[in-house]
């Protein structure tokens, strides 16, 4: 359970508690130190109630914040102190919120969990992974949201790409008509459009990856400043790059193929004049 002063008790080694004669030291997180102007060696009073009596302690160390996503949105201050001192300060008695246990790994972990849960009175042992899954629900939601935005963006991009390819290829229909009339096959024309589309897709991917990488630097710089955390908010990995490049190339090729097919299926004379075949009948009727 969290305490009124948002103190987090670090599990230190539990020695027999010597009688205190001098203020003990605590470690203060850098955000707190920065906001209130604390330095190593400064004294402060820790109390469990606002304005209430407390213990005088000395700032023994400043602790850099961990890159913990769960801390990002919470504007909390943290103080690390000796377990016994915290227990005494908040009147917790000989109690803790949890133990963190390191085993020899593998099967040893399983047998340790079984043994603890069998013998335990009122507490339960969990693998760290299970706890992590439970506590990371928020980030799973954010991940799902980002993935949905990503899918929508891909679908939108596919439509945009198809639109623009169709427009640009359509613009060259007279050139295509002339090529067809001098004997260039539809297949060659489609192939050349696809090569062009693929080149544009590859070049575009390169530019896009560069922009994405630069954007991720900007995003991390900005949000690290806003939330005062070393957490990385955007990471461009080889896998992500490979996926983005593969998707854009596939989309580009498909868009180019569809655009080219539409063009070569139209008779060359119609491409040139813009008139449809059925005009022939109207012509005959007029004469």
């Amino acid at each position, binding site marked *: 359970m969290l305490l*009124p002063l948002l103190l987090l008790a670090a599990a230190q080694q539990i020695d027999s508690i010597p009688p205190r004669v001098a203020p003990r030291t605590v470690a203060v997180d850098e955000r707190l130190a920065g906001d209130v102007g604390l330095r190593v060696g400064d004294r402060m009073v820790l109390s469990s109630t*606002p304005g209430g009596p407390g213990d005088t302690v000395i700032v023994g160390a400043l602790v850099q914040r961990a890159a913990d996503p769960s801390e990002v949105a919470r504007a909390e201050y943290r103080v690390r102190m000796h377990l016994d001192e915290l227990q005494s300060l908040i009147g917790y008695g000989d109690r803790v919120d949890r133990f963190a246990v390191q085993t020899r790994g593998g099967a040893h972990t399983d047998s340790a969990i079984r043994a603890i849960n069998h013998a335990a*009175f009122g507490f339960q042992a969990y693998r760290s992974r299970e706890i992590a899954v439970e506590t990371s*629900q928020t980030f799973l*939601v954010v991940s799902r949201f980002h993935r949905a935005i990503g899918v929508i963006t891909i679908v939108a991009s596919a439509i*945009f790409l198809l639109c623009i390819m169709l427009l640009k290829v359509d613009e060259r229909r007279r050139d295509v008509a002339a090529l067809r009339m001098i004997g260039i096959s539809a297949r060659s024309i489609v192939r050349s459009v696809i090569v062009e589309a693929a080149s544009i897709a590859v070049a575009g991917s390169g530019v896009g990856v560069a922009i994405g990488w630069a954007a991720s630097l900007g995003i991390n710089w900005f949000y690290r400043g806003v939330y005062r955390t070393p957490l990385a908010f955007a990471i461009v990995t080889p896998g992500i790059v490979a996926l983005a490049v593969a998707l854009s190339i596939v989309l580009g090729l498909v868009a180019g193929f569809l655009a080219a097919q539409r063009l070569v299926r139209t008779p060359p004379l119609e491409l040139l004049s813009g008139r449809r075949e059925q005009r022939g009948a109207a012509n005959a009727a007029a004469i």
Partner: protein
Amino acid sequence: MLFHLAWATLLRHRGRTVLTVLGVAVSAAMLLDMVMLSSGMRASFRNMLVASGFELRIAPKGTLPFDTDATIPNATSIAHRLQADSDVTTVSPVLGGQLHVTVGQRTINATALGGIGRVQGDYDITDGRVPSAPDEVVASAEFLRASGLAIGDTIRAAAGYDPELRTTTGSRALRIVGRAHFVYLPAEQRAIALPLETLQRMQGARSTDRVSLFMVKTRAGANADTVLHRLQRTLPNVSMISTASAMQQVDQRLSYFRQLALILGAVSLAVGFLLVTTLVTVSVNERLGEIVIMRAIGVARERIVLQIVLEGIAIMLAGAIVGLGLGLLTARYLNSILASFPGLPAAIDFFLFEPHDAWTALGLLTAVGILAGVYPSWRGASLPIALTLREEAVG
């Protein structure tokens, strides 16, 4: 005639027009979603806060309401001092906790809210009535469903649980007199509301004369922030938050979504602009002969530009209408994802549709449609007539 010519030109290339409209629709949908996202969460959070009419909230020093398990001591004295202020009309104390309810062989845990029935603002009765006796409670629909209980049933609930001895403390029989919708809790939360004093007794010495939160209503016309500052001076050992400062906290915590909305909205507009510019440019390039002939026969350049820009606007408007429907659908889908945030009150929507949002998106799209069409059409309409005619003849 210009409108007719613009319309006829668009219809002449139906496939191209439809595809461009579709592209603009996708862009418009995304823009609408982002406009909704940027204002929706804020609006729905604010609506939730003001729904019950309490403008001020008082929490333990240095905390936000129910952010921690901390409680405020000397609650009775504080309540009297709050009530004594001339601008304060209602004070609602709230104590939070957990109840462990035994149902047959099972134990069901529920969030407990202790309050005073006639002034509380945490729940709305959907069936039954507000508790009036010390042993009466109301429960959320999810609790009733999970427990299989109904209005009129009696439950055995305990406020404490000793995990070592596996025994409960502060146990008491309570009768369910109503079903309630808990305004500030997630829809799937199992919750029970009961009289404040009952919960305090059940929690034992640690909760004697303590509450988690006070909610305060001010009289009509009073400035909530002025009242807040005055009360804060008299009660320095608590933290006071007005709706405005709560909104600031929310803005800060949810700033990521607003920034995301801004960036994606800008990208949507840029892509829509690109699409319409490309369409207009291609269309103009194809029709250079027609355009210069119109100039040759005496149609003014501005009128030609207007006709072409009208085509761009028509596509934008058509795309915006289709995009409106598409945007509402995707907003619903995206909202369902974000609504599964753990602990998010059911009243919060991330994507809240307000007509103002649709008008904003439409206005932006129209402006972009005009901008996208102006340059290529002006360029086309400004070509030298004789030279262009010669090139067209050769081409």
